[in-house]
């Protein structure tokens, strides 16, 4: 008998808030976190908008009470902050009480520091301590050590779908009895590397991103971290804990179409959603809200919209929250998992900001206002370069 997978804690840091509550308040008051870039030196600063967290690394280190001699990069700092909040919110005192794991995800990893010191390490031995912090796995190990966690630790990197896969793996491990409790999510800092990378693909907007709008010009990059605490039935029973929501279904497929672009009819997205319905044993018409991937690139929104139109007879209410946060890459599915749980808890659909004109190819339109309605099941999509498509379904506790 497979076990149910409960969500018992959440932690988040994004450009719209340093806590779950702050994020919720921003979402329901339509307060976007998209701004001009401040913390990174780049010649493109005036041509882009970003979802930047206006807290310096020094401030984050203080918030975390780290010793001066640490080698955390921003990705690790954001991750440790959100993971710690998640653990606290789940009311966990002894992190190693049960078989506990950490499944993190990142795409940028320590690149934000590597790009600062690259080719300067020889003359500046004081920077060399950060060389090992470049590795993606290093950020997860640091987060685990910061939490005092000893157990299963791994890192997933499937571009912009990374955190969805971290949640999926964690849920699978709980269901099949490999872990009792697992902290799952993702973290990515803004970096010059990704700003320039997305710029070469010509998919960065020079203004506020407009998901699912006919005249969308591309995405805004953002930075964030978020983690969920997942626990098994047995642990919930033992600790008599409040369940925030359940991970009910998940699906993972590859579009196998192009290295960066999504296929015209959204085959990978379609397959991921289909699998998620099968796993959750629910029908598409039971979904009350979709938190779409909705990056606001011409390609993603059309492909995702087509996939939705294919799988749903009537596409349910949907919105992209990326107009609030920007596209936070590996962390995107984790922050949107938090938003999905908030939608379930508060019976609230969050608005898709900046939408004006429906896409001419499709007859679907996102929600543009805060909507109060009964919500039992939320579907969240996340897609990445390399055709990596993932879908999660969250259900009411």
């Amino acid at each position, binding site marked *: 008998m497979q076990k149910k997978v409960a969500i018992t804690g959440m932690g988040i840091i994004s450009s719209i808030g340093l806590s779950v509550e702050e994020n919720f308040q921003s979402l329901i008051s339509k307060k976007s976190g998209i701004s001009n870039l401040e913390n990174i030196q780049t*010649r493109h600063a005036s041509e882009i908008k970003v979802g930047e967290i206006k807290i310096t690394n020094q401030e984050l280190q203080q918030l975390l009470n780290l010793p001066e001699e640490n080698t955390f990069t921003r990705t690790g700092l954001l991750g440790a902050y959100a993971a710690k909040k998640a653990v606290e919110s789940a009311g966990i005192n002894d992190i*190693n009480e049960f078989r506990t794991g950490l499944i993190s995800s*990142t795409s940028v990893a320590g690149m934000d520091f*590597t790009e600062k010191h*690259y*080719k300067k*390490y*020889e003359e500046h*031995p004081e920077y*060399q*301590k950060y*060389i090992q912090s*470049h*590795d*993606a*796995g*290093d950020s*997860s*190990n640091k987060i*685990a*050590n910061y939490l005092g*966690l*000893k*157990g*299963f*630790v*791994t*890192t*997933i*990197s*499937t*571009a912009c779908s990374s955190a969805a*896969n971290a949640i999926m*793996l964690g849920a*699978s491990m709980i*269901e*099949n009895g490999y872990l009792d409790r697992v902290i799952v999510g993702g973290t990515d800092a803004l970096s*010059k*590397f990704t700003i*320039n*990378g997305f*710029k*070469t*693909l010509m998919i960065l907007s020079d203004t506020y991103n407009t998901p699912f709008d006919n005249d969308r010009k591309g995405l805004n990059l953002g930075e964030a971290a978020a983690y969920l605490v997942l626990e098994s039935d047995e642990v919930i029973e033992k600790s008599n804990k409040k369940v925030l929501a359940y991970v009910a279904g998940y699906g*993972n*497929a*590859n*579009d*196998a*179409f*192009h*290295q*960066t672009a999504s296929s015209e009819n959204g*085959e990978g997205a379609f*397959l991921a959603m289909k699998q998620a319905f099968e796993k959750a044993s629910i029908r598409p018409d039971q979904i009350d809200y979709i938190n779409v991937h909705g990056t606001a690139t011409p390609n993603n929104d059309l492909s995702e919209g087509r996939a939705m139109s294919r799988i749903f007879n009537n596409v349910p209410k949907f919105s992209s929250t990326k107009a609030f946060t920007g596209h936070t890459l590996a962390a995107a599915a984790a922050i949107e998992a938090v938003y999905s749980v908030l939608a379930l808890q508060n019976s609230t659909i969050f608005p898709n900001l900046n939408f004006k004109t429906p896409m001419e190819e499709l007859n679907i339109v996102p929600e543009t206002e805060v909507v109060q309605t009964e919500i039992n099941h939320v579907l969240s999509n996340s897609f*990445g*370069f*390399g*055709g*990596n498509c993932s879908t999660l379904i969250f259900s009411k506790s």
Partner: protein
Amino acid sequence: MKNCYINGIGNVSIQSVDFDLFESEITEIQILNKAQQPSYTDLIARAMSRRMAKGVKMGIFAANKALFNAKMVDPQAVIVGTGLGCIEDSEKFLDAIIENDEQFLTPTAFIQSTHNTVAAQIALHLQCKAYNFTYVNGANSFESALFDAFMQLKHFNKENILIGGVDEIAPYTFSMYEMIGKVKQSGEEVNFKDPQTKGIALAEGATFFALSNNKTNNSYAEVLDVMLFNAFKDDEATEINTFLAKNNISVADLDVVFFGVNADAHQQEFYNKMNAVFSEIPQGYYQHISGSYDTASAFGLKVAAEIIQKQQLPKAVQYNNIEPNKIEKVLMINQFNNTDFSFVLLSKC
């Protein structure tokens, strides 16, 4: 409960392209060891390969070999572990950012620099729309992929899975490693049995496996269990015994234990402890053949699977002087710098 068999293996390593563990002479390890590249022209169309990073080509080659070896055509998952992904393209893109002050940058290097590019391009190459994951957790990146496949085969409706480990060398990364002593300094001896200096002998490669529920004539071994963790909760011996006990065996039942020894005097301390735990057991090693990199343990699994199938432990991979009289249960132990630990338990099938 369904089983997890290793039915096919494919590999690109620093050894000759047709390297055979039981027959070939082993090329002696250096401080920096580049993989011997096979010819890719038959396998990958020029239109595709012109943009491919070395790691992608090695990965596609090893993946195809593994599938061919197992006569497997449509895996229901592609799962890859890599420490750093295609790091050479990350360097290229960073170099270009600096040299041209963020101007005239092109997308190819950026695309290849994303960690999931190998798994993604294998999916593209095979036109495989199935489950696709990439793990990036240092020295147990490959074991993460192996664990996921193991769980998928046991509990999900999947019959055939392709997994692999791949990492490549890049020039500036190597020089950074020299600065921090992660690799051996020029002129230092590379000694796996009694290392006197710190640092590893860096290498690169790709090793892929076709795993299946179904036992075939070509099955090398069965994967009985996989465990990975960041730190020991208890003392090492206790945790090893607990892991083995979970699988109804004890240390004395093991026929061979493989260590991921990497010629680093600092890291040898851990393996000295292992040596004490397994002092009565035949011991093996493999990084003197593969060189050391985050996913070298995938090469280790290839060696272990081959000795199980052949029932023969060649002198060249023996770490102590105890000869096995049969090879049925094999344990692999790996780590890097006292974290990213993994245990992999194999059985004759």
